[in-house]
């Protein structure tokens, strides 16, 4: 839309510029090419004037022409004569024979305007008569121009009008052509914009840009196909993991079931019951791994449905801290809650957010076997529209260069080291839960200075 208007404006501008340049160029050409050889040498009027200067009476009352005037006359193959007040020729130079030697008033009026026996003649008024200079036949054309004074006066205005009309015409034509062009381009522009938004595009073929629209269409088709293929692959992967975890659940049920039954059998030796307990505990670990794996894969491929409702994050912090304390948190760990603003509500899936928070706390506990102080803080974010849920500890922290790695899924390309403890899904799960809420997980740490994990969540 905007792009099309810009193109049209550009187009009209350059058209007008071209018109102006053309006009100026034409004017210059008119001066230099058309009106250049309007005459040879000096104009007849100038010759006449010069002859007038060169014609003088000598001491005896005879007329004589100066040398150079004579040469001038000769060069132009012209002749000259001087008529006195009565129309008689007083002096002549190179006069052709057919030229009469006396003229009436009518003759003079006639030839001074046009021709004398087809000789183009030019006159000059002198004290002692009229100097007449005749050029060879067919050498000059003489035209009389007559204009109304009114017309002459309004000529500048008319010229201006002419220019304006020209400008208007140029503008109109360029807008017309430009609009047609835009009509042709518009679907292409819309198509490209839609392409950028990954919408399916079908630009009508035809016209000047048929090959372009074909390219756009095929690009769109390709994009759609690729997206669909990607989606299908994601779905297949997620379904695969869901299927595998489903298939693990049934045998795991048996392992857990019989192991716990053996564990409770009084008649078995204590050692055997202990071993059964180990099997049961490992089975439970496997169970949590399977369900975590399933959840992470659902989040990874955006197939986890979110049940969003406004969550008071301060209440979430208190809940998580209380649950850890109630479930017998070891004395080596201290857990405190700091609430900056009670009223902060973030839309979220309560179960998932609670999971994210407990994973962060669990992470701090697991990475600091010597104990640490864990602090939960909730606050409004300095950047508008977000809130922060901060879980920080004063434990060993994580080397800064490893931070990007710990949110990657275990075993993906690019994750350098295998996670040392746990199954390594905890922090990646938190990061994905944050992303599912259109927020993110920000980790900050220095070795020895503890880990600071910020869940940044949008407020609405």
């Amino acid at each position, binding site marked *: 839309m905007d792009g099309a208007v810009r193109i049209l404006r550009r187009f009209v501008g350059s058209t007008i510029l071209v018109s102006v340049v053309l006009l100026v160029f034409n004017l210059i050409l008119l001066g230099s090419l058309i009106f250049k050889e309007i005459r040879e040498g000096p104009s007849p009027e100038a010759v006449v004037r010069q002859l007038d200067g060169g014609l003088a009476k000598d001491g005896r009352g005879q007329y004589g022409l100066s040398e150079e005037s004579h040469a001038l006359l000769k060069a132009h193959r012209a002749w000259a004569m001087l008529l006195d007040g009565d129309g008689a020729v007083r002096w002549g130079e190179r006069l052709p024979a057919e030229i009469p030697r006396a003229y009436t008033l009518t003759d003079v009026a006639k030839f001074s305007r046009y021709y004398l026996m087809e000789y183009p003649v030019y006159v000059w008024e002198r004290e002692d008569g009229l100097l007449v200079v005749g050029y060879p036949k067919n050498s000059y054309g003489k035209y009389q121009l007559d204009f109304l004074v009114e017309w002459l006066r309004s000529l500048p205005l008319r010229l201006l009008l002419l220019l304006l009309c020209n400008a208007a015409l140029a503008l109109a034509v360029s807008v017309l052509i430009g609009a047609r062009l835009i009509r042709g381009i518009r679907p292409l522009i819309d198509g490209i914009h839609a392409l950028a938004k990954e919408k399916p595009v079908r630009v009508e073929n035809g016209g000047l840009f048929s090959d372009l629209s074909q390219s756009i269409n095929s690009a769109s088709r390709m994009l759609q196909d690729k997206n669909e293929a990607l989606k299908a692959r994601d779905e297949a992967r997620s379904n695969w993991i*869901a299927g595998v975890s*489903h*298939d693990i*659940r*049934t045998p*795991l*049920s*048996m*392992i*857990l*079931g*019989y192991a*716990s*039954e053996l564990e409770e059998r009084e008649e078995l030796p204590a050692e055997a019951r202990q071993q059964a307990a180990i099997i*049961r505990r490992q*089975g439970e670990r496997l*169970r949590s791994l399977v*369900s975590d794996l*399933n959840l992470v894969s659902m989040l990874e491929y955006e197939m986890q*449905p979110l*049940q969003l409702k406004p969550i*008071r994050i301060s*209440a979430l912090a*208190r*809940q998580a*801290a*209380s649950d850890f*304390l*109630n479930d017998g948190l070891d004395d080596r760990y201290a857990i*405190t*809650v*700091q*609430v900056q603003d*009670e*009223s902060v509500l973030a839309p979220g899936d309560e*179960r998932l957010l609670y999971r994210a928070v407990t994973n962060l706390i669990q992470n701090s506990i697991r990475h600091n076997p010597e104990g640490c102080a864990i602090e939960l803080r909730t606050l409004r974010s300095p950047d508008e529209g977000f809130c922060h849920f901060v879980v920080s500890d004063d434990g060993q922290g994580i080397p800064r260069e490893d931070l990007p790695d710990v949110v990657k899924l275990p075993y993906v390309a690019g994750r350098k080291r295998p996670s040392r403890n746990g199954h390594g899904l905890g922090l990646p799960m938190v990061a994905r839960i944050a992303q599912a809420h259109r927020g993110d997980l920000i980790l900050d740490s220095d070795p020895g200075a503890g880990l600071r994990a910020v869940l940044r969540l949008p407020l609405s």
Partner: protein
Amino acid sequence: MDMVKNKKILIVDDEPDIREMIERFLRKEGFFRVYKADNYADALSLCRYEKPDAAILDVMLPDGDGFSLLSSIRSFSDMPVLFLSARGEDEDRLLGLGLGADDYVVKPFLPRELILRLMAVLKRVYGAPAVERLPVFRLESQVVDLEGSVVRREGGELPLTAKEHAILLKLYENRGRIVTSDALCRAVWGDESYGYENTLMVHVRRIREKIEEDPSKPAHLLTVRGLGYKLAAARETR
């Protein structure tokens, strides 16, 4: 003999090993009328002719799914149903409970967990309609009677207001554990309880005046700073 143990229990699962294991646990627990089916059709006809008192249904069956089986059963029976599923997804859970299932257990499960849930369901449905009695418990020399909504101590009885009663009940249900102020407010004032923390503090102070020897140094109703309150382990008197 326990009334619930003679109930007929139907197990529907396509995995023979799982069926066998569950049956084993049930029999060990004392149930002796256990029926098994491995598909939708058999399960439905068993339900019609044997009229079991409760059913444990697998969600995925070879010839249908457990949810539609439940719908069919519901057309002629109101027996309690417990779902057993290898798919832990929430939609399944909601769908199962929305259809009128009484509980939902995700595989893999611990046998104890399954039995406990089944017993709870059976007791709820078939158990004698015992009069729900509220607890009465002793805190040193004070006796908190939530049934009568009074605190008995030397020198007489102190009545509890409705709010104090609700707070004490919630704390007693979670005795020995921290109850967040949010959970307490929700228990007393409902879901839209934001902003009642100060009121809660006032009520807690009044409760302490009734149940503590020295309300300024509480020994039973403890404040857990920043989180909520905790009722130190109390002894039920009956």
